[in-house]
């Protein structure tokens, strides 16, 4: 099964200053599968997600120990270009954060950053990415409108399209639907099912039903430790630890 592992996290520790936020985490993220990451607030699940594309580097005073192997290569090795990692491992944030540009330019931004100049290529890529994010039909006649004119759910799908445009291998999503209404949430969830055909996905969620619906594997974090990691079907029907069951059934958290 090793060749199906996209990202292997091995004995991973993460510090904010002296504060140990993740302790000896071991997770395998499988190719073309969805990993759901659950746990109470402050348990380190967002920290874990942001460790997978080194977005935590942005915060001063952070330190990582252990391995995050992307296709077998530790992304924390000194010879690794963090910019390249972030292109390969895309990210969608909790609060949709389109740039104050046109819809078209939002999606094209990543391509331009990566040095693409070919106009035809860019417009094809923008169209495909918007289609990939199930947004094309809603915006195809107003690509030059400002992204802020879109609804919250559309903005979040635009951010997904923006991430897809640079052809990442993995897409990380940090509670992508937490600010959305049920209809918009459902659209995002359907989209995730569609996306996993081509991408490996890791998604942080507070919503147990959502984790059960969209993920193939689930990782349950508490107080910086990985409590349990298993196939979602097993975890939600027959968890091996009592505390997992208590959290999943909503007895705390």
């Amino acid at each position: 099964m090793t060749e199906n592992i996209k990202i292997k996290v091995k004995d991973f520790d993460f510090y904010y200053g002296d504060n140990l936020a993740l302790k000896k985490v071991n997770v395998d993220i499988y190719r073309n599968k969805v990993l759901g990451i659950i746990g109470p607030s402050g348990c380190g699940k967002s920290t874990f997600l942001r460790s997978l594309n080194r977005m935590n580097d942005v915060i001063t005073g952070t330190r990582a120990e252990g391995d995050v192997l992307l296709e077998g290569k530790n992304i924390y090795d000194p010879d690794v270009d963090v910019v390249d990692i972030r292109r390969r491992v895309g990210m969608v944030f909790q609060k949709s954060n389109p740039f104050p540009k046109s819809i078209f330019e939002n999606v094209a931004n990543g391509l331009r950053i990566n040095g693409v100049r070919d106009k035809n290529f860019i417009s094809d890529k923008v169209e495909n990415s918007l289609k990939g994010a199930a947004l094309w039909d809603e915006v195809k006649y107003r690509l030059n409108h400002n992204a802020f004119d879109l609804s919250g759910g559309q903005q979040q799908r635009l951010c997904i399209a923006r991430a897809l445009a640079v052809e990442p291998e993995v897409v990380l999503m940090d509670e992508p639907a937490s600010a959305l209404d049920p209809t918009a949430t459902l659209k995002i969830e359907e989209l995730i099912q569609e996306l996993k055909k081509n991408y490996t996905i890791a998604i942080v969620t507070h919503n147990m039903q959502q984790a059960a619906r969209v993920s193939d594997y689930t990782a349950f974090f508490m107080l910086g430790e990985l409590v349990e990691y298993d196939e979602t079907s097993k975890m939600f029907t027959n968890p091996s630890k009592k505390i997992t069951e208590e959290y999943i059934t909503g007895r705390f958290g």
Partner: protein
Amino acid sequence: MNNRTIEQRTGFILLSLFFLIVLAIIIVIFVDIISKGFSVISWEFLTQPPRKGMTQGGIFPAIVGTFMVTVMTAVLAVPLGMGCAIYLNEYANDNKLTRLIRMSIRNLSGVPSIVYGLFGVVIFVQLMRFGTCILSAGFTLGLMTLPWTITASEEALKNVPQSYRDGSLALGATKWQAIKTNVLPYAVPGMLTGTILGLARAAGETAPILFTGAAFFLPFLPKSIFDQFMALPYHLYIMATQHHDIEMVRPIAYGTALVLIVLVLSMNLFAIILRYRLRKVRKE
């Protein structure tokens, strides 16, 4: 009437009174300058050099001199100030040292302008051997403007949401690309506005140019940045206190004051319009 109502009414009356006093002061200043200065404003006044021991003629060299020295101020203050702000806000770690540096920069804006003048003499006129000239005076004013430019630019950068930077980095942008494409375009209006306000203030300063390049009287215009120049604030100072017949040239002093005020106000107005325009563009 109960106590609360009385308190409320007296409070309101007192506060409006303070406001009216301030308003009255401003109006008196403006009315005074405009009423006494407007009569001497003419095409000749704006386009001719002073004549007959500066008792007649215009203030053209002073207008040109102020314009040139302000451009020189911008040459130093704009790139240095913006660059410094970008470094401080985007690159520098937030530690004791940078906090100290930031505090020092803020405090620099409180240093009396005459001190900058003295510093300019020592550094630009003597040490760097520029002599008393537009370059020395402009750079001195530039140094004085730096804290304003840096502070305003830093505020403008702070107002750009962190999510723009994160979003950009997550697409594989380098730090500089993120700043260039998704931070600066939204910060530049604020940066420019703060800078122009700083420049407008510099244009009206006398003390820093007093020893560094401003001339009492020049019958001709400066030919290069290494020439001395006349400037509106300095000319006003001379007309108001140093002239041999102060009473006689009083109208010219008022006219100079009016031109200076109009110049500074139009720079401020330009800054406001610029900010408004750029904001509108950004929203579209």
